[in-house]
């Protein structure tokens, strides 16, 4: 009975027009797994090695996360908005390494890695902390 009441409260909250934005997306095994994969990709970045393949891997994992979330439905807007800044950060890098005649800059890579480590840690904490 209590569980029904709890579920009913959440449903009622989500049904109120003014409170719709108050209901977050809920725990999802696939999203949790993928956001940690993104963190792992970033942790493993080797700035002495060729960058393009490594950046492509992060980009693909973030694209998977976005496509999966979009496919799952409207309640996922919060986690899509959460990962968009990271996607933009990676996209800029991907465009740069995809330019013809591009030469990898390890200093740029190292700083980009630091930024992405901070971004992905924050994003993963929010995704894994959901109810």
């Amino acid at each position, binding site marked *: 009975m209590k569980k029904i009441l709890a579920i009913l409260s959440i449903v009622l909250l989500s049904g109120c027009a003014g409170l719709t934005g108050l209901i977050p997306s809920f725990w999802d095994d696939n999203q949790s797994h993928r956001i940690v994969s993104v963190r792992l990709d970033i942790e493993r970045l080797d700035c002495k090695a060729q960058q393009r393949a490594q950046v492509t891997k992060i980009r693909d994992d973030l694209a998977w996360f976005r496509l999966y979330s979009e496919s799952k439905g409207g309640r996922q807007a919060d986690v899509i908005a959460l990962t968009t800044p990271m996607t933009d950060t990676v996209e800029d890098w991907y465009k740069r390494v995809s330019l013809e005649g591009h030469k990898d800059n390890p200093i740029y890579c190292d700083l980009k890695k630091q930024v992405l480590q901070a971004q992905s840690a924050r994003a993963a904490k929010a995704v894994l*902390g959901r109810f």
Partner: protein
Amino acid sequence: MSLQTLYEIAGRDNAPWAASRAAMVIAITEQYQGGGLDRSEYMEMMQDLVRMDALDAEASDIELKTMLVSAVYAVAQVV
């Protein structure tokens, strides 16, 4: 804001979030000034730091909403 101010913020123990962000700005700026980054790379990095603020705001929003749902659930368990 001068680099000196950023160094002061980076050294603060009571605000680890601000200290970490200031340290990143310093590292990026020093590399630019030393020739390690070109102008477009430097500008892109600064844009990334602005994006971090957006991501942080979204993360805080999700965490707050999760707390609200947890509280509703907990209250319902007691009633």
